[in-house]
Each structure stands twice: as structure tokens, then as C-alpha cells.
């Protein structure tokens, strides 16, 4: 379904968080697709390359770290910006995620405004990089 809306893949196993994100992002005029675990996330990505992936770390089946690693190796979706979302706020966890190629990291519970701001910033960054 071609559209000028940016598509964000939300990978989150907790229903309340998933629907919150969907709601927040749709209000910001993004198109949101969802996955409830790591495997589903990968099959979504293979069906359709999103403009951004919002990826929870602790997921059933495949965890977020592994999903991140595999997406980065995917020739088609390898350059999709990934924002990790986690309940673990330890600097070591953040570093691990960023090392695997995540572009940003948000700690739960997050502030809605902050999250939206960071997503906008990430898209701007991507645009700028493309221009180079």
C-alpha cells in the first residue's frame, strides 16, 4: 500500500506497551505495523522494509539483540534505523545494543514526548545522511 506516510515497525510483546506505541505514533501520522516477538519481527521485515524499527529487547523466541543483528545482515533492510526499547537501563546494556548497530536506545517507562522527539530526530539524521 504505497503511501507517503513513514512506516514504523513496532516489535513489542507487551500488549499495553504495543497499543500505546501504536496509538502515539499513529497520532504523529506514522503508519504502524506490529510484531509480538522476534521471529514475527523478522518475517515482517522480509515482507516489507519499514522506515524505522522500534525494537523491544526482551522478547519471546528471538530477543531484540538477535533481531537487531539479523536485520543488520539483511541486504534489503540492513540500513533501516533501529531504536531499541528496553526495561533495562544499565549503561552496559545500552552499549551492547548500540554495538550491534542500533541507532538509539530508549528506556522504559519512557516519556511520550521524548520518544516522539527522538523518532523525529532519528528520521532527520537519516535524511541528512542520505544527502551526504
Amino acid at each position, binding site marked *: 500500500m504505497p503511501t507517503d506516510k513513514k512506516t514504523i515497525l513496532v516489535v513489542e510483546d*507487551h500488549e*499495553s*506497551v504495543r*497499543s*500505546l*506505541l501504536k*496509538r*502515539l505514533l499513529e*497520532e504523529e501520522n506514522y503508519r504502524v505495523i506490529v510484531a509480538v516477538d522476534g521471529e514475527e519481527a523478522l518475517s515482517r521485515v522480509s515482507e516489507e522494509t519499514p522506515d524505522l524499527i522500534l525494537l523491544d529487547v*526482551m522478547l519471546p523466541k528471538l530477543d531484540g539483540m538477535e533481531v537487531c543483528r539479523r536485520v543488520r545482515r539483511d541486504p534489503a533492510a540492513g540500513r533501516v534505523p533501529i531504536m531499541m526499547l528496553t*526495561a*533495562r*537501563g*544499565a*549503561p*552496559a546494556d545500552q552499549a551492547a545494543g548500540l554495538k550491534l548497530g542500533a541507532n538509539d536506545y530508549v528506556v*522504559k*517507562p*519512557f*516519556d*511520550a*514526548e521524548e520518544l516522539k522527539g527522538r523518532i523525529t530526530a532519528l528520521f532527520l539524521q537519516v535524511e541528512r545522511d542520505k544527502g551526504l
Partner: protein
Amino acid sequence: MNAKQGVKILVVDDEQGIREFLSFELSQQGYEVFTASNGAEALERIRAEKFSLVISDIRMPMLGGLEALEAIKRMEPDVEVIMMTGYGTIETAVEAMKKGAYDFILKPFNLEEMLTLIDKVLEKSELKVMVAVYEASKSVFSSIDLKKILPVIVKLSLNILKADDVSVMLMGDDGKLSVAACSGAEGDERLQAFLEIGNRVAGRAAEWKTPIFVSGPLEKDPRFAGILSMRQIKHSIIYPLFIDNELLGILNVNRMAQDVPFGPIDLRGLTILGSQISQAVYNAKLYRQLQDKMTALEQAQEHLIQSEKLAAIGQLSAGVAHELNNPLTGILGFTQILLQDEEITAKQREDLEVIQSQSQRCRQIVQSLLQFSRKQNPHKEPLNAVQVFNSVLKFVKYDVSKAGIELISELPETLPPIWGDSSQLQQVLLNILTNAMHALEGRESKKLILRAFAKSGRVVVEVEDNGHGVPEKHLSEIFDPFFTTKPAGRGTGLGLSISFGIMQEHQGAIQVKSEEGRGAKFILDFPVYGGAEKNSSVTKPQTLNEARRA
């Protein structure tokens, strides 16, 4: 030394012939012989001298033998008395034995008979001393508590050595003598003089290894020249207490009132007593070392248990915290969405804001839990504790002045550096300062004193307030995770246990001193950076009980 030398015998007889005969013959044997011609004179003699034996006639003018015997036994119960008697007075002699005479000898006697009897008496009296010493040392040995032993040692030495002044000095771990016990009043001057004597002897005791006898005032003895005048001491024994070439202390025995030098019997008693005392002091020392080791072991065990407890709580907290973060995300997020809806009423907005603030509070608790559970890798660097302090003060200064708290800073310009993670240490200080501010709420005068100083290889940081203080029953709990007395919603009960953990990671310690109603003082101390390698091997981690006991 001739065993008879120094043994004093008093011969009491109204017959000059007997007095001269015995005086001459006994002196030939080596005894020191004194004479008296009647009972009254004998008593005078005994008052002035210390005799081992009195040989007395029964029938005498002035004061008869029996009466004299009674008086002598009253004055000096330990003095042995031999009665000399003629055939006509045998019954009286038997009576005398009932009254405490050792034996009697019939006049006329031959010299051999008399000498044998004297030997027997002296042997017995010496045996009595030794038995007393052994009996006494049994009681010394019955305890390994130095506090109980020392008074016994003093008392025994007074009794056995017929002294009227005794002090015991013990060698401390620092190699210095100190007066551990003494008889009579503890005049400072006197103790000082004893110490001076002890120190001089200690210096040479290793070579001498024998008791030192001093007769006459100490100041006349060149070995003790310059020592505070101790005129009242007439005779003195300074006895080093040794075990295996190790000097444990000094026993100082003095005669002040009686002008009787210490003799060979005293020496024999002292030798037995001294070796027993040495052994007892040594045992007490070993026992104390054993106790110290036991205490260290107990503390290590307690520390282990505490660490395990913290680790278990940490794991649990981490799990719970992660689980809570997801629902919290939902609650906070949807609340935020609702709050942005312009159609809600003011009342609804108010309610939603309560939900939001309470959820934020949950979020803080969860974050403390995670922080508590996290084994963070601290980034340590050489730090100036004052700078850490100042950076925290920046955060709280506004709140402090708003609360009307007088901030008294006793922070020095310079301090030796410490090795630490500045953000962790800021957190510790922030916890303590926050607690202090809470404790000052509702107080009339509010003071917060900050101190930092260096002390024997450590940097000490203190935060003192004159707030409500910590009740004694809580002192043992304030470092426990989840312990809090703050009203619900104000504290997680994790601040001090996190601080405790951080201080442990810094080879430091956190202690609290407090009196309920009068304030509290938190003391942090750290090893100085640079001296750390040397210190770390001997610095054992602080146990929770040590923090509470402070």
C-alpha cells in the same frame, strides 16, 4: 647464695649465757641473729624487723613466754616460734604449742638438736610460702581473662612478698609498657614513676632477665637516677615477666612502710609466683589473640551472609523491576495521552495528574531497585573528596536554604586524593544529605555540618545534623535494604544500603553515630589513593555490624 643468709632469727631469753651462746653459734651457721632479754623487748624487735623464726624461753620477767607468743602470733601470724623450756614447765610448753608455737626444746639442749629443729622449722615455713604460692597461682590460672587475673596478681604479690605496694606493667602491641594494675591509689605521679622504672628495666631486661632488687630510695640507685623522687619506697623488686625470651611485662613490688629488705625466701616465692604470672599473662594474651581471630572470622562470615543476601535481593529486585517497567510504560503513556486531550474536565485532569505522579513515583522506586541490583562497573579515578562534595552541594544548596537549614562547611582547601567513581560517591553523599534534610524537618534550629579531613592514611568525610536522630533500635537496621522510617511514598529504604555497597566497593566504610533527638553523624572513610595497594591487603571489607556499631 647461702640459704641461711638473710634468714633472721630472734633469740629471747633472760639468761645472758643462752643468748650469747645461741647468737654466736647461729651466726656461725650464717643466720642473722638478734636477741631480746624479755617478752616486751622481743615484741619491740618484731615490730621493727621481719623475722623468720623466734626462739623464746618460756619463763621470763616482764612479759612471759606464753604471753609474748600470743602477742607475736597476733602481730605476725607467719612467724614460727620455738619455745625453750625446763622440765618443770613441760605442761606450759604443750600449752604454747596449742597457742601456735611450732615446737619446744628442753633445756639444756645440745647445739645439734637445736640446729636440726631450726632447719625443720624453716623448711616448713618455706614450704608454707611455696604452698601459698601454688595455691594462689591456681587461682591465677583459673581465669584467662586479664581483667580478672590482674587484681589477683596484685593481691598475691602483696601477700606473698609481704609488700605494701605492687604494680603490674604490661607490654602493649605497640611495644610500649603501660600500668595495667596497681595497688592503692592511682596517683598519676606514682604511675608515671613506675612507668619510667619499667621502661628503663624493659630496655635491659632482655639482657638481665633477673629480678632487680633495690634497697633504699630509688633515686639513690644510679640505675634509676633522675626518676621522680620515690622516697617512700624503701625496698623494691623489679621483676621482668618473660616467656621464651619475650618480655610480657614488669612486676614491681615495693615495701614502703616496713624497712625490711627482700630476702632469699622472698626471691624463691617471687620466682615461683613470677613464672606463674608470666604464664598466666601469656595465656591471657594468646586467648585474646584467639578471640580476635574468632571475631575476624565471625565478621567475615557475617559479611559473606550479607553479601549473599544483597545479591539475592538484587536478583529478585531486577526481575521484579523489569516486570514492572512494562505496565508502568502503559500507565504513564496512556495517562499522558489522556492529559493531552483538550476535552477532559478540570477534575478529570486533576485525577489524571495524580495517576501520573504516583506512577512516576513507582518508576523511581523501580529505578532504585535496578540501581541496587546492578553490579555496576565503577569508573574509578583519583578524586578530591571536597570536589565531590561540592558538586553534590550544587544540587542540594537550593533545597537546603529553602528549608532554613544552616549549612556549616568545614571542608579543607586540600586533601589527599582518593580512588573512586565520582558519580557513585556523589550518589552516596546525596543519599546522606537527603536523609539529613529529612531529619531536620520540624526542628527549631537546623544545622548541617560538612567535614572532610585526612587521618592516618584515610580520608574521612562527615555529614552531621542536629535533626531527630536515629533511635537506637533502628541503628542496627538502617543499612538493610528496604528499611525506612520515612512516611510511605518518601523513601524506598534503599539509599543507605546502596551507599553501603558503594563504600564497600571503594574499600571504604560508612558508619553512623546518633543519639535520638540530638542528631546523627554519618562518617565515610576511604583509603588515600597511592597508599591503596599497601592498604588493600590489610583492609578487610566493612561488615554491616561494624557500620551499625560505630
